[in-house]
């Protein structure tokens, strides 16, 4: 069981890290602000989600897990808002 959980964590976190790196690549390569915004926020939010998912077994209790999930949800919300705000400000 523990081995399975470990494998799950490694898989999820690695995938998360890959998304973060992808987001950065997008930031470096894309030509203008809106496209860079796309690359950044989407990839990073998925990355964070995967990291959170991978760390869930280590939170030690329901409350900790709940906190972790709400961290992700809050980041999603603020990410969406900020993307909209910046995109409008640039336009």
């Amino acid at each position, binding site marked *: 069981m523990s081995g399975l959980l470990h494998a799950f964590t490694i898989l999820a976190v690695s995938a998360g890290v890959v998304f973060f790196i992808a987001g950065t690549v997008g930031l470096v390569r894309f030509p203008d602000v809106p496209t860079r915004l796309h690359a950044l926020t989407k990839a990073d939010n998925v990355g964070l989600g995967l990291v959170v998912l991978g760390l869930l077994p280590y939170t030690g209790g329901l409350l900790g897990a709940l906190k972790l999930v709400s961290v992700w949800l*809050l980041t999603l919300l603020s990410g969406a808002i900020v993307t909209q705000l910046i995109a409008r400000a640039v336009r």
Partner: protein
Amino acid sequence: MALVFDIGIVSLLIAIGAWMIMARDTLVAVIIFVVYGLLMSIAWVRLSAVDVALTEAAIGSGITGMLLLSAAARLRQTEGAGARPSFPVCVAAGSLCALISAGLAGVVLLPADVAPTLAPLAVANLADTGLENPVAGVLFAYRALDTLLEKVVLLLALLGVWSLGSDRAWGGAPALGAYVPPNDILVFFAQVLPPIGIVFAAYMTWTGASHPGGAFQGGTVLAVMWLLVMMAGVARAPPISSTKVRWLLVAGPALFLAVGFLGFVIAAGFLAYPVDYAKALIVLIEIALALSIGVTLALLAAGPPERTLQP
């Protein structure tokens, strides 16, 4: 591996700090400051100071960042005011600062054989305060006088900010958010986030007695939520002459002071707590302080009164 991580974060902090000082555009420098604050709270976690990490996240990058960002945006036109000193002056200043840094690094390298600490003493006395978070114990019991005086400092700073309004605007409201055209996304955000924030602030204040957190962090979250509501134009900034605002401002420090004087009667003296009720009293003080801190910080960030209100 942990050391590699620390080296990474330290070099990022230094690089960002240098970039902040060198950046041409003030607005950019301020945004970098926000980034710096975010990284700094990770550094505090690495130093096992979670209470400080929370404070840094809330005040250091959150509300200070907002304050400086709006100021930088308002001062965009004044950008070339004053010239950088000439190159030789910069070099001289640079060498002086490098010397100070080197001296400080030397002090870091010369630690005592056994680093002095008050941690055992703080933990040993914690039972008398009824608290489980030693940092809260220091803030609200051992060094309560500092905390109380610091509340007065906050109030004075607010009065100082208010005093910078014009004579005519005294008693009016800060202009924050008064001229914002409606923006549906911002309004949506300012309606969704504050309930979550208020719950979190209450949790922070409540949990502070036993876990990292407390009135400072909770109060700052409250302040940020209120500022968000004001900036989105959902609610107006209140006039500074409002009786409700004034009472909220002093409620925390006044309760703190009252409990302090009560200590003369029911405990061993000023700012001492009776052992049985210590925790209850401290939590009560923290709740009142969180409210007062929230209002004070928000009004500090909102700036001096600019709009005179029609009676």
